[in-house]
């Protein structure tokens, strides 16, 4: 005997359930299908290709009017169900019709989440959910601006679809990188780059404040930093909420969604639910694969056949042409987890597998997702991968093969890329020398001159030999930057410039980093190399700096900080001293000490007090002494010819001039100078990174001194006649060190590597080069001579560093 089945909602899950039911037993039920949208079932996940114009609506319709008719389904499209009387087992339609049922199936789907911010009800603010939304987006063209809130799957598909129509699209995303639920930072970076290439503006970590309107219609989105993003249409794609209203009204058990058991039965045994409206074992569902599984189980349950819904691993692919990405499983890092990372910079490929107990538990892929199903299979089946670990990342085709070449980054360089900066030798010229018979490093040095000057490019030259000669050439062992990379410091620096890499994720991707986000050793080094290579471009990443440079003060053993204002050349004034005394009183500074660099250290300052202390010191005209920086520290001076009977020159004045010229610069390590007025050397110039000793005839410039872990006497670089030359040589030497030395090497270590003679050639002998170095230094200083204290005390830069997120001490005390 035919029973009556009523289905509420014609979506993908109920559509599939209906298909399965009819296929198994076409006569079991007399079916009535309600749908609030005035149409039948279409493939909702294909709306994105419709939006971008790659498909038409007709192509994504899954069940046509004929299909419903042939299968005897009574369609009530465009009609809502008003209520259900469970006691009498009748459904009450909007128009008052009462329809009896034996079984009822909920497929009410989900509602898009609309952020209830001011202006959300303006005309032109929409979600991305159904064909109407899609059609509105399709009506946009080259003359329109659209803002999409939400950098998840749906938001990006909406953005890319409209961008393909020439619309000026901006994506506003609250989190730090796109699709953070599916992608890690590296893949998020590649995705962002691809979207930006498509002309989409992406703003991450942007908090929307309100939607601004005009005559009831949307005009712009305002962010909480005050930025206004003008738009003709605003699309919110920030998530979905299961639509449980009707189920709740009629008293079914409801949590986040309609509660269902493993048979898809709700708390009422005659009512089933499938799709995005259900909650099963605490989980809700937004992707299509589990929905189809539910549909299959529901159809069997309706036919009284045993079936059990089991949640399984799901994977995600983004449907944006040209952005191939795939993510599945769990890819958070953890103590008992290991990462295998593969990057092919030339092709823009990133792959990461997360392993736990010799099984793949997560995968993220970007650029080449051809093997994604194979990896997904390994995750689903929890395959033990111990035997194929070494080649696993390359995919199924490489099982049993050999691992990829570690020389990939150098192999990918174009022939005109400069390898040896000293002699201006390109990769092509080195290859020509090798092909001409130079098959050892020494032979290449002799014939092409590459690597024969400062020697910092030797690592790269060796790799070019390796790439060109293959197995015939044995690569020497070398010291790498850290365990995250096979490259040395010198290699990394040169490749940053040759490949114009301008962010840490970019460096890690293009130089084949082996860890997903680097470590505390490579991150600060890379940050310095970027800061040095690209002055004036916003490359500095505070989060890759050590705490002292991040908060512009020195952390002490008890977690307090020390504050050292700059005193140019060691000269101060009563006004400055009064201001220092006042802040010491006001902020109860426990220790005030005179430093070896001729300035005053306020020790024991609380982190929260730093901006206020800096404000007060700034009022008296003082700025940061950068006593915490891998950068220019102090210029120590003696009193010189102004006061001293032995003084030959104005050493104090020169010290002040040099410090005025050089403060604010970052370098591989700290850099300390001194100027002494005569060879009695009261300013201790002979143990400084750069020391000047004034003599009757001019200025002796000494470099490479040390008086720390190592004790070394500075050696004479050059003697010059005028103050101007002394300043230029100092700047040029500092710049040569800044550009060449490995991070955390003081000048003496760097000089030991490149040789003092080479430094003399560059700075003392070659006047043109000296001028060019000094000019590069001056250019860089335009951007780095900014008092970081003033920015933080007066402009609120990085305020999050100095204040607690929340304070419950008072609450608890009450």
């Amino acid at each position, binding site marked *: 005997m035919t029973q009556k089945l009523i289905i509420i909602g014609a979506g993908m899950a109920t559509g599939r359930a209906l298909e399965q039911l009819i296929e198994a037993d076409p006569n079991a039920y007399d079916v009535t299908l309600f749908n609030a949208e005035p149409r039948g079932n279409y493939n909702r996940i294909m709306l994105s290709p419709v939006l971008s114009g790659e498909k038409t609506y007709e192509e994504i319709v899954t069940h046509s009017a004929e299909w419903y008719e042939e299968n005897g389904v009574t369609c009530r499209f465009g009609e809502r169900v008003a209520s259900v009387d469970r006691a009498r087992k009748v459904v009450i339609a909007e128009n008052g019709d009462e329809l009896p049922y034996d079984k009822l199936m909920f497929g009410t789907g989900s509602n898009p989440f609309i952020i209830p911010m001011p202006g959300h009800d303006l005309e032109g603010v929409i979600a991305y959910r159904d064909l109407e939304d899609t059609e509105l987006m399709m009506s946009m063209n080259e003359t329109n601006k659209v803002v999409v809130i939400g950098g998840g799957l749906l938001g990006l598909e909406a953005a890319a679809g409209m961008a393909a129509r020439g619309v000026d699209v901006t994506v506003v995303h609250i989190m730090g990188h796109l699709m953070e639920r599916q992608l890690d930072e590296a893949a998020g970076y590649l995705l962002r780059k691809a979207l930006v290439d498509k002309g989409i503006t992406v703003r991450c970590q942007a*908090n929307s404040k309100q939607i601004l309107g005009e005559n009831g219609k949307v005009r712009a989105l305002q962010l909480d930093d005050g930025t206004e993003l003008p738009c003709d249409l605003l699309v919110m794609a920030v998530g979905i909420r299961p639509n449980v209203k009707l189920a709740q009204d009629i008293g079914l058990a409801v949590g986040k969604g309609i509660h269902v058991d493993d048979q898809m039965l709700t708390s009422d045994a005659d009512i089933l639910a499938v799709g995005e409206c259900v909650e099963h074992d605490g989980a809700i569902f937004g992707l299509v694969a589990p929905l189809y599984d539910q549909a299959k189980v529901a159809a069997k349950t309706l036919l009284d056949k045993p079936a059990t819904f089991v949640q399984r691993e799901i994977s995600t692919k983004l449907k944006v042409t040209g952005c191939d990405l795939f993510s599945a499983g769990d890819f958070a890092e953890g103590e008992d987890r290991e990462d295998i990372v593969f990057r092919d910079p030339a092709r823009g490929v990133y792959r990461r597998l997360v392993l736990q107990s010799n099984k793949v538990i997560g995968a993220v892929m970007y650029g080449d997702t051809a093997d994604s199903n194979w990896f997904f299979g390994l995750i689903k089946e929890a395959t033990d991968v111990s035997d194929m670990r070494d080649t696993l990342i390359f995919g199924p085709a490489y099982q049993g093969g050999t691992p990829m070449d570690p020389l990939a980054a150098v192999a990918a360089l174009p022939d005109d890329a400069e390898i040896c900066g000293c002699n201006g030798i390109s990769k092509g010229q080195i290859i020509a020398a090798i092909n001409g018979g130079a098959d050892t490093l020494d032979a290449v040095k002799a014939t092409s001159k590459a690597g024969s000057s400062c020697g910092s490019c030797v690592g790269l030259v060796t790799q070019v030999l390796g790439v060109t000669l293959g197995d015939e050439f044995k690569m020497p062992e070398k010291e790498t930057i850290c365990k995250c990379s096979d490259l040395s410091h010198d290699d990394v620096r040169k490749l940053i410039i040759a490949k114009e890499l301008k962010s840490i994720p970019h460096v890690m991707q293009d130089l084949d980093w082996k860890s997903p986000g680097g470590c505390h050793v490579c991150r600060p080094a890379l940050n310095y190399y970027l800061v040095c290579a690209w002055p004036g471009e916003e490359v500095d990443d505070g989060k890759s700096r050590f705490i002292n440079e991040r908060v512009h003060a020195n952390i002490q053993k008890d977690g307090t900080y020390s504050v050292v204002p700059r005193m140019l050349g060691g000269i101060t004034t009563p006004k400055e001293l009064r201001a220092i005394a006042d802040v010491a009183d006001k902020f109860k500074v426990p220790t005030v000490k005179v430093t070896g660099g001729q300035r005053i250290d306020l020790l024991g300052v609380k982190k929260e007090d730093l901006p206020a202390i800096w404000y007060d010191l700034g009022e008296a005209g003082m700025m940061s002494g950068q006593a915490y920086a891998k950068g220019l520290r102090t210029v120590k001076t003696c009193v010189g010819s102004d006061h001293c009977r032995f003084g030959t020159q104005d050493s104090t004045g020169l010290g002040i001039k040099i410090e005025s010229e050089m403060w604010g610069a970052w370098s591989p390590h700290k850099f300390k100078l001194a100027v002494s007025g005569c060879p009695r050397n009261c300013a201790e110039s002979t143990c400084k990174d750069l020391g000047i000793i004034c003599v009757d005839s001019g200025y002796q410039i000494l470099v490479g001194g040390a008086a720390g872990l190592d004790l070394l006497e500075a050696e004479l670089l050059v003697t010059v006649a005028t103050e101007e030359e002394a300043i230029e040589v100092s700047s040029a030497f500092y710049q040569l060190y800044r550009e060449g030395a490995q991070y955390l090497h003081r000048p003496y270590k760097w000089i030991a590597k490149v040789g003092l003679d080479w430094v003399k050639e560059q700075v003392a002998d070659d006047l043109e080069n000296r001028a060019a170095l000094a000019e590069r230094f001056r250019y860089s200083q335009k951007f780095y001579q900014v008092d970081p204290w003033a920015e933080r005390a007066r402009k609120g830069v990085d305020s999050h560093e100095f204040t607690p997120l929340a304070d419950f001490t008072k609450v608890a005390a009450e």
Partner: protein
Amino acid sequence: MTDFIDIGSVTDIPVQGARIVRTAHGDIAVFHTASGHFYAVDEYLEGKAGPLSNGIQHGEKVTDPMRNWVFDLATGEAQGADEGCVGTYEMKVEGGRLLLSSAAIAGRVAAE
């Protein structure tokens, strides 16, 4: 059932940044990692490490600024040769808000 207390917005902590939550019984460091996860752990491992909110983050780990100990943010365990563990606290994100388990604050009071 765990109770949660709103401690701020996800945008209050920059990616790869950290801030502290003060409680009557010590500071808790809240981390926002590059992968978009949030973790709450003790700011100090008494006598051994901290203040951890000042460390450099990499992946789901942080390096202590004082002695370079590396801690796993999810488990609180010191990595490598170092032995020790900082307390971890349950937290979650809902609607762009950061929620910290009230036990992180009240539980510590109760422990006294």
